[in-house]
């Protein structure tokens, strides 16, 4: 007994040490220079935690060996064989298995005798979260590997969505019922139903979300699997589970938010819009909506862009932003992005206005291009940054016969993948006409003085 207590103390000590290693590992994973070491450290922590746990086992060693060896083999094989392009779906798959493991742990705990109500709640929570993680991840895997083609709107999808909605009251019921009854029922009739419902719910959760949003969803599921593990830790009174699980849960959440931002969405938008439009006919909300963006988010998008076209206008001159613009251009180039400047002949208020300013800021002549040069390949541009230009990028000049500027050739930034428009307000330019560009699907408005907006982006780059 004494001996056992001692072992427990030692185990706990090692758990603490490996928790600390997990913490440091995650921290190191967040920096390019230390990321590889961080991963090793966290693997080492995992090894310690697992090894020390083996000092006091209850299950048959054969089962354990079989499970670990088989699992290790499968996992390693997949990890080594998989094509690098298929990595996102692999992460989803692994994550699903992690969720399944906690799901099974909680199930097993449910079978234990003498659960307190508190424990019962924990069990149910773990099952619910673990189960959703599992089946949700499988769907995400299917979608990413393009094995699953069902999208939102299909009947099957809608059925699963109903399961998801159903699962919530069901969850509340299984949690509350025993609390009211005051005792915990052993394998009640509804338990297996709940298990199945949970798995269905996970499918319904991920099914309606589009493939492009999958990375965000995977990150969210990853966070969920962490939380499930943490709950399992509470259940098993194991602190390394708690720490590692909640670390993953929390950092995963933050990561999810960051990634959603980088895609210019909010999480609720990703999840909710998925649902909302699944019932309707979708795609009818296109005109009239202005989508503002912050410089943080703009930065995240620019950082991932491989070609950028800067289109300066009179607003750049007013803001005297030429120096920061050049700086941003250089930083983008350092980042491996191809940068060009699209100079419209009448940008500014005098012939050659942009040239004067860009020359002052030392932007090389070789980077300047005329509309004829940039328009044909506009669709290969990842981001067009319109800096205080307005009339010269107004698509109604080419599209709306009645417009006072109709007939002027423009820089057709609206054909780029994404357009940032930097200006202070929605007001019009020299010609006094409204600009439909601002309302396009692929346009984001970065409001504020151009010098400041770009200054902020530059600052982000320098971090």
């Amino acid at each position, binding site marked *: 007994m004494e001996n056992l207590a001692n072992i427990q103390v030692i185990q706990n000590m090692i758990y603490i040490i490996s928790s600390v290693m997990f913490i440091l*590992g*995650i921290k190191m994973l*967040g920096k*390019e220079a230390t*990321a590889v070491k961080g*991963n090793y450290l*966290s693997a080492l922590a*995992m090894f310690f*935690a*697992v090894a020390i*746990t083996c000092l006091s086992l*209850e*299950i*048959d060693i054969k*089962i*354990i060996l*079989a*499970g*670990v*060896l088989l*699992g290790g*083999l499968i*996992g*390693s094989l997949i*990890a080594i064989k998989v094509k*690098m392009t298929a*990595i996102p779906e*692999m*992460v989803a798959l*692994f*994550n699903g*298995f*992690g969720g*399944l*493991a*906690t799901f*099974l*742990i909680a*199930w097993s*705990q449910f*079978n*234990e005798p003498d659960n307190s109500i508190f424990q019962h709640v924990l069990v149910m929570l773990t099952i619910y979260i673990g189960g959703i993680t599992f089946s949700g991840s499988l769907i995400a895997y299917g979608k990413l590997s393009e094995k699953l083609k069902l999208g939102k709107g299909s009947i099957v999808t809608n059925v699963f969505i109903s399961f998801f909605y159903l699962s919530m009251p069901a969850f509340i019921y299984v949690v509350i019922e025993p609390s009211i009854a005051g005792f915990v029922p052993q394998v009640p009739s509804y338990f297996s139903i709940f298990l199945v419902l949970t798995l269905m719910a996970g499918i319904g959760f991920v099914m309606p979300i589009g493939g492009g949003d999958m990375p965000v969803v995977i990150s969210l599921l*990853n966070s969920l699997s962490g939380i*499930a593990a*943490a709950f399992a830790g509470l259940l098993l009174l*194991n602190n390394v*589970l*708690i*720490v*590692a699980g*909640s*670390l*993953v849960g*929390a*950092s*995963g*959440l*933050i990561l999810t938010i*960051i*990634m959603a931002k980088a895609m210019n969405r909010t999480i609720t938008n990703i999840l909710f819009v998925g649902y909302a439009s699944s019932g309707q006919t979708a795609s009818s909300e296109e005109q009239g909506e202005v989508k503002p963006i912050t410089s943080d988010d703009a930065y995240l998008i620019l950082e991932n862009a491989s070609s950028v076209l800067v289109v300066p206008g009179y607003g750049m001159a007013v803001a005297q932003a030429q120096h920061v613009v050049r700086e941003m251009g250089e930083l983008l180039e350092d980042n491996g992005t191809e940068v060009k400047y699209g100079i419209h002949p009448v940008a500014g208020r005098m012939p050659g206005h942009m040239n004067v300013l860009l020359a002052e800021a030392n932007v090389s002549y070789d980077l300047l291009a005329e509309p004829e040069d940039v328009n044909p390949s506009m669709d290969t541009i990842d981001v067009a940054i319109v800096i205080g230009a307005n009339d010269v990028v107004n698509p109604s000049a080419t599209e709306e016969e009645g417009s006072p500027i109709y007939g002027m050739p423009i820089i057709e930034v609206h054909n780029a993948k994404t357009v940032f428009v930097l200006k202070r307000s929605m007001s019009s330019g020299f010609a006094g006409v409204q600009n439909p560009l601002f309302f396009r699907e692929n346009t984001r408005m970065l409001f504020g003085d151009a010098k400041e907006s770009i200054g902020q982006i530059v600052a982000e780059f320098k971090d």
Partner: protein
Amino acid sequence: MEMYVLLGFVLLLSIFLGLELISKVPSTLHTPLMSGANAISGIALVGALMLSSAGQMQDILAFGAILFASINVFGGYLVTNRMLSMFKKK
């Protein structure tokens, strides 16, 4: 109960720490970080190992938990490592 309180506390503190740790991560590291965190969530393996063995049902559950958790752990770390080694080459 006391125990739960303390453990809950550990949970809380870890969450705070997790939030603080990942506040400024370059976007190139998003995927590896996600993958690395995913490997860590394989810590469920420790939980699986702690399960008690009482009857075949429990054994099956334990085996399943150990199996899947192991896949998560091994696969997760290896994939993360592969991903990170790609960066270095650049």
